[in-house]
């Protein structure tokens, strides 16, 4: 699978900095444009996403794609028993890795037991805003990482390479609190992954170099980076306008469809509401697929506007 590089990107109606995924108006069939969207086959459950904190978060970011916040209740917290059952389902299907997300996972009172349970069985990544990492928790994470047979990844989100950009999304002081969390993790001998929302129009390598320089100044040597595009979902849709009704993959010529390009061929997300096609669409119409993971192991019609962003960028929410 070859991922389309950012340098191939051009401004288009698919959104700023998002590539036109090979569509041509000449090739468009009216029937396809009106009715048909491609179906993504399901290959295998490589990645299970667990919305372990529901939509509860100590921050209320202006671009949050699931509208998480201190009073957000659309998805409930998952219990240790809930998670054990979902992980068991996933292991029976041969899952490769488990990701915990929310909301903010460290708001779940049972998160330490949940992570320990799971890490005994599979690699674990915890996505966090990095603001709830007191010394005792960092020490526990470092000890657990040292003794675990699998990788324990801590993935900390930043929304820009400077405080002003980040705090514009996340609120005053968020940058300083997250950098403090990153310093604590690194100081304890951990190697967090730092995700950055990639600004439209900036060369990806230049942006990565800029981010690395900022983190190096904070004492993080050669951090692992992950760049993510902006999705017009949740509060970001409220802020900047969501996907237009005609922004779907309906016009993608069938011959151009690569069944291995999208993450939904190899992932599912579970929340208190059931099984969803991917972590991006847990709060979107059409995103819920089934009650069980086994039932969700079927093709998915790529009818959502966000599918266009995934297709155009070739992105995955997973670590690689």
């Amino acid at each position, binding site marked *: *699978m*070859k*991922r389309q*590089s*950012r340098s191939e990107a051009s401004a288009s109606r698919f959104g700023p900095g998002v590539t036109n995924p090979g569509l041509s108006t000449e090739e468009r069939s009216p029937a396809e444009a009106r009715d048909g969207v491609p179906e993504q086959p399901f290959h*295998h459950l*490589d990645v299970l996403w667990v919305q372990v904190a529901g939509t509860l978060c100590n921050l209320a970011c202006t671009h949050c794609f699931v509208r998480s916040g201190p009073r957000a209740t659309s998805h409930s917290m998952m219990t240790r028993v809930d998670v054990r059952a979902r992980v068991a389902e996933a*292991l*029976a*299907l*041969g*899952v*490769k*890795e488990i990701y915990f997300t929310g909301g903010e996972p460290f708001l779940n009172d049972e998160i330490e037991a949940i992570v320990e349970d799971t890490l005994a*069985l*599979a*690699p674990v990544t915890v996505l966090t805003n990095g603001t709830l990492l007191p010394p005792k928790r960092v020490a526990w994470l470092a000890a657990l*990482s*040292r003794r*675990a047979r*699998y*990788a*324990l*990844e*801590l993935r900390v989100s930043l929304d820009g390479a400077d405080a002003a950009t980040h705090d514009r999304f996340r609120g005053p002081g968020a940058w300083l609190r997250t950098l403090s969390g990153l310093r604590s993790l690194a100081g304890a*001998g*951990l*190697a*967090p*992954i730092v995700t950055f929302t990639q600004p439209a129009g900036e060369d*990806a*390598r230049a*942006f*990565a*170099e800029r981010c690395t320089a900022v983190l190096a100044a904070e004492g993080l040597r*050669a951090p*692992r*980076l*992950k*760049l993510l595009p902006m999705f017009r979902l949740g509060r970001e849709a409220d802020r900047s306008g969501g996907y237009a009704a005609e922004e779907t993959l309906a016009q993608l010529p069938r011959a151009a469809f690569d069944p*291995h390009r999208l993450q939904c061929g190899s992932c599912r997300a579970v929340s208190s509401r059931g099984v969803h096609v991917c972590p991006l669409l847990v709060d979107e119409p059409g995103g819920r697929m089934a009650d069980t993971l086994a039932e969700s192991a079927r093709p998915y019609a790529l009818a959502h506007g966000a599918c266009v962003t995934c297709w155009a960028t070739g992105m995955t929410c997973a*670590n*690689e």
Partner: protein
Amino acid sequence: MRERVSANGRGTARLAVLGGVYANHLALAQALDDVAARGLDAAWCLGDIGGFGPAPEKSIAILRARAVPTVQGNYDHSIGHGLDDCACGYCDPRDAHFAQLAYDYTARSVGDASRAWLAALPREARLTLGGRTVLLCHGSPRRQNEFLWDGSCSDAFLAWLCDTYAADVIVCTHTGLHWARPLPGGRWVVNCGAVGRPAHDGRPHTWYAELAFARDGAIDVAFRPVHYDHEALALEMEREGLPPEFVETIRTGWWTTCLGNMPAKERLAGAANIGAA
């Protein structure tokens, strides 16, 4: 490709598997000499013959002259078919940048005859050793450029790979780091690492895997270090104008590129190995 390798007179078949040559012809030759000196029954190469190091034709010539059976890596597929990039699957744009420098150099340095040879390499090989089915591949049985890291593969996933691809033992490379995992039912997944690049642990030597298959089905896996003249390779890389970042890795044993996909477990283990044997 299917092939049967007989056990030797001791009743155990011993197989060497060399991954990730990356144009390190000095380490490749040293490793094959070591295999011969140890009296192993066969040596296989799991591909990615070019990239990173100097003069890839030298490594191709060694493999062909010594008739080393070779599985195609993504690099070999790309060079063999004249594609635009190596399709290594790096997720960090800086890694992709350095990968492209290595790829462009390799593409310029490989002639038509070698391209045809690379393009014709098989994507996998199946051997029967000690009554066990051994599947040799580059990335994974399902994808030539899949990274199978020790830290990010559950037992459940590796067992699923063995079940789905009907193998008792899967041997792969592509990540550049070696590891071996026994699984229930006496099965194994082994990443043989890279013979062409050190294992990101501050030591300049490289590695290959040795697998022993007893007649009763028992399997033993060991990793053998390859000590070679890394300074000579570094000087040759400098003469070829390859990036100083690559040369630094050869001299120090620490990766300077291709780190963007590496899990925390491997990153931290490398640092912990400083000063080890």
